[in-house]
Every structure is written in C-alpha cells, then in structure tokens.
C-alpha cells in the first residue's frame, strides 16, 4: 500500500555477483539525494545483505509501527548550507530497509528456501512505511534470475498496475570482462521477458589508476559493458573505475583525498593540500557530505542525470 506514494521505482540488477550492485545502488542513492530528491533504498538480497554496511548503519534496527515497518533513516533532509565552506550542502532525506536490520547477529546465516524468500520480499514491498512523498525507491537485488527476482517483479507489476509509469525500470550493472558480461546478458533477457524497461547499463570496476605511477590498468579488461549495451540496444550510462578511496570511505569512513593533479570529469579533486583537515579519520560529517569529495561522485552525477532525464520525462504522477 505504501508503494502508492512513491514517484519512481528503480531496480538495480545484475546476473553476476560481486560486480558492485550494492555499491552502485549506494552511490545512486547518495547522488540522487544530493540532487535534492528524497530517496529510499530497499535491499532484497536476503542471504547476503550489504546495504547496512555500505551506509555505515549496521547496528540500526527497524521498528515496527501500526501498519508496517519503519525503515532506518541514513540522513535527514538538509536545506541549509553546511559549515564546510565549500558551497552549500543541500540534500534530500535518505532511508533504507534491509533484512540486515532484522537479524539478531551480523554473522547469522539466513538459511531459507525459495517460498520463504518470496514471502519476505512481498512483505518488504507491501509493508515498509516509506516516508510520504518519496521521489525515488532504489531496489538492490541479489545476483541471478530466481526467486527474489521473480517475486519482486510479480509484486511490483501488481502493485503498480494502476500507474505503470511508477516502475521506471532497471539499471543493469556489469564489470567489463567477458565472464561477467555473459551472465549479465541473461539478466537483460530476463528484463525483456518480464517486461521491465532497461534504463541503461553501468560498467563498474573499469580500470584502476595506480596510485604510484598514475598508469591506468584495466584490471578486469575493458569495453565489455559498452559493447553489450550496443548489442542489446540499451543505453550505456557510463564506466565507473575502481577507486580505493571509495572503499576507504565505505569501510573506514575516511573522506577521500587524491594526489595533486587528479582531474575527474574536468573537475580537480581535493588533495591533501587543499583540504587542510588533519583529522581525516575522525571527520564526523555524514557519509553523503564526504561522498562529494570522492572521485566517483562527478561520474555518478552524470549517470543520475541520464537516468532522471529519462524517468522524469515519462508522465509520472507529476
């Protein structure tokens, strides 16, 4: 029932595991939030939920309220300029829902067969009390084309039957190498078969810039994502390189800094010198603010713009 209020629902899919679905979901959510949208993230990877870790809210718990479950808020809306001095920080609210918030221990395995997973996915979809007027709901999925995916798409198609434009479509993630592309092609065929529009393909882990010599190595080869997008006639949204600073941001909460002269999308990145903060480890700024220092942010700003341009042109509940 609570899905009715949501303007756009986006799925993040990939046939292959570990290509960065959760990482892409996280960054799409942060970027959309930075563009002023209110965003929700639903993690339906039941046996390996990563979203709580990505947002640094592993200890959070969901609360039960009359009529459903209250998702965990990552940050509230911010309309005032920040004290950082590098421009005003305005962003929309962001909240998350994941099975990770319900488990009693972080090491606990969820040993469920299909029907149980189906029930859980349905319950997440129908009884999460998202904040009213949510602009975007991003759904992070497990790898494959099985129970969770079938249930998710079935439920979504029923729930959005009265307003089909609500289900905006899917962002499909791959890495460049052939092994990954061949699994992800199966996912594109899945989307075709069930009638979910593919908004585009994101190629993750495309190249790694050696911090010692600045040489870019294609760790997982190159160009696979773009070639696949052309083959299937779907938009190619962009290539996202491997950035250890992003991993550091997620794992340890360290605000990214880059060597002098690092320029991404024509924009110079912050260096040790320009950012005169000495206590990087204890920087208490929210994740979303730190993310703006990450080299991947300008790339995601571009990807999000392509997505929102397509999504918002379609006559949604304006």
């Amino acid at each position, binding site marked *: 029932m609570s899905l009715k209020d949501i303007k756009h629902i986006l799925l993040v899919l990939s046939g292959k595991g570990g290509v960065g679905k959760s990482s892409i979901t996280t960054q799409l959510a942060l970027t959309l939030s930075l563009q002023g949208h209110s965003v929700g993230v639903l993690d339906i990877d039941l046996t390996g939920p990563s979203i709580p870790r990505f947002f640094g809210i592993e200890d959070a718990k969901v609360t039960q309220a009359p009529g459903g479950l209250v998702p965990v808020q990552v940050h509230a809306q911010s309309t005032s300029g920040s004290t950082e001095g590098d421009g005003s920080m305005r962003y929309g609210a962001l909240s998350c829902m994941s099975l990770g918030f319900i488990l009693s221990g972080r090491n*606990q395995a969820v*040993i469920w067969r*299909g029907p149980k997973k189906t029930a859980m996915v349905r*319950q997440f979809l129908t009884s999460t009390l998202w904040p009213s007027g949510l602009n975007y709901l991003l759904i992070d999925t497990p790898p494959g084309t*099985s129970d969770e*995916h079938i249930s998710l798409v079935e439920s979504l198609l029923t729930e959005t039957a009265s307003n089909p434009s609500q289900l905006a479509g899917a962002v499909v993630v791959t890495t460049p190498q052939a*092994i990954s592309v061949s699994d992800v092609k199966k996912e594109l065929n899945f989307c075709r*078969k069930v009638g979910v529009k593919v908004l585009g393909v994101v190629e993750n882990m495309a190249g790694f810039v*050696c911090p010692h010599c600045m040489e870019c190595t294609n760790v997982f080869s190159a160009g696979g994502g773009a070639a696949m997008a052309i083959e299937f006639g779907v938009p190619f949204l962009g290539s996202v390189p491997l950035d250890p600073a992003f*991993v550091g941001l997620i794992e340890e909460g360290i605000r990214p800094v880059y060597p002098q002269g690092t320029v991404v999308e024509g924009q110079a990145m912050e260096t040790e010198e320009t950012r005169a903060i000495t206590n990087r480890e204890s920087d208490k700024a929210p994740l979303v603010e730190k993310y703006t220092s990450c080299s991947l942010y300008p790339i995601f700003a571009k990807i999000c713009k392509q997505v929102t341009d397509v999504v918002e042109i379609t006559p949604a509940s304006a």
Partner: protein
Amino acid sequence: MAPPPDPPLTPPPDEESQSVLNAPLKAAPALVAPEPEHCPGPESEQAGKGDACAGCPNQAICASAPKGPDPDIPLIAERLAGVRHKIVVLSGKGGVGKSSLSSMLAFGFAASKAGDEELTVGLMDADITGPSIPKMLGVEDESIHISGEGWSPVWVSDNLCTMSVQFMLPNRDDAVIWRGAKKNGLIKRFLKDVAWGALDVLVVDTPPGTSDEHLSVNSFLKEAGIDGAVLVTTPQEVSLLDVRKEVDFCRKADIKILGIVENMSGFVCPNCRGTSQIFRASTGGARRLAEEEGIPFLGAVPLDPRIGMACDFGESFLDAYPDSPASTALLEVVAGVRKAIHMDSNGVAAG
C-alpha cells in the same frame, strides 16, 4: 480500505534454520499449482501439514506423497560411488572468484599427480542462473550427450570433465528464470543422472548465498559424503561479512571447512610494480577471520588482470603463466586442499 494485517516480522530463529537443514528429503511430488508463501517445501516432512498448506491446491498431493527419505538419495550415493573426494566451493558473497577458483582448483588437480597416476577431476556447476564454468574451461559451445549410462559430462581434457546448465540452453544468453524447486530438481539430476564415472575429485561450484542450491547440494550429497568446503572471499569487510554467514551455514549444516582463500588480495601494477590494496582489508582480511573462527587459511591470491583474461578465454592460468606470483599462490591453495582431504602428493590417497 484498511490494509490487511501483516504477519509479525520476526528474525529467523536458529532452530528454524536447523529444521530446514535437518529436514530429511523425500521425493518431491508433482504439484498442480505454484508453492504458496511460507510453503514448507514439497520435499519436507511437513509437506501438506504446515500452516501455509491450508487452502493450497497442492495440499492433498503433498500430504499423500510417500513419506520417508527421498528414494533418489541412495541412487546418488551409488552413482557417486566411484568419486573419491567431493569438495564444495562456497562463498556468501558473489563475484569474489568462486568460479575462477573452482576452475583453477580443477585445472590444478588435473595437472598434479598422485604417485604415477594422473588425477581425474570433475567440476559441477551448481550456479543455475549464472553459470560461468563452461566459459572458464573453454567449452561454452558444447552440449550434453545422452548415453545408456546417463548424461555424459563434457570433457575439457583427458582427465577433466564438467557439467553445467549452460550446456542445456538453446541460446547462449538465455536467462534461466527458475524458482527454487526447479533448480533443486536440476541439481539432483546433475548428481543422479550424470555418468561421472571414476573420479579422484569432484569440485562443486555454487552460487552466492545460503539458500536452495546450497541446501540441496548438502542434502543430496550427505549420504555420498562431502569431504568439505573451501570458502572464498575478498579482503574487504563487505565481503567478509557475507562469508561469516557462510561459515555459520557450514557449521549448522555440519560441513567441514577445509579452509579459506583470500582472492583479489593486493594488486601489483604491471607498469611500476607498486602494490596497491584495491579491496583494503580494513578488518584484517581472511587471515584474521580464519584465526577468529579457527579455520585453516589456505592462501592469498593476488589480483592479476591475466587471471581474468585466462578465464575469459577459457584457458588454464596455471599453464599460461606458471611463474607468476598468482600461480604460485594458487598451487599452494591446491596443495593445502589436498592436504586437508588427506590426498598426499606421494599417491597414498586415504579415503
């Protein structure tokens, strides 16, 4: 319109996973309708009697199906009687290199010897919705042949054979959109109907997670006996988090953990030889996890772009770059696994 009352959302209790694991499988009856939510599983002892069964069109069928263990399980044990060792490759996390490691283990075993004899190795791909093994072994375009003995596995070399759902697809990119029960059925046929013959080692590659495929592989192989599981992870905490869940799964399912392998551990720039930690082990990596959990650490395999290339082209990385640090690390892993399953290099293979 009042929303329908929701069932209370409860965390999965431990006893529940235990009952899922211990459920002795019986033969799955032919269903007339899809399984309902919270279905106890048509193979389970509770079939037809659970709360969710009320009103299900299958109820009568499930309830009247013969009870007792699945009659196919002894058939599987018989079929696999010639298989000396069975190893499962597991990881809670996707894309950490389960399939690359499985294929490299298989290549590694096939290249090593026990005494004067070459080892014969089988590699079964239990990842139904994302099969990668055929591509990595370079046999993507093969299909299955059926003989009097059953389905013939695809032979990669004289002493390495494999089986995967990929061989059964009419088109290479077809999606396999199957729910759990159907996946379980195919895994059973891979074990029961494939003429594996006499193998020294059967390596089973699995999809990420702790769900249908894992439960099925475990219960179907219980009687035939699993030597143990090799866990794969990458160094960063996001991956270790899921692997801890897999450790929990192995403990609950009573599968021996042969050891843990850290993959993509450090990257050596081919240009300047400088090492970088792409996936930083902020919490001590697999080595620390192994210490904490008291399981053997089998080795750390560095991230080498040539491994990915070798997998894409379906050739053995170990043959192509025998002198690389990654090959050395992989051979150590193979040796570690051999030791763990008591298969000594001097040929005394203790069962």
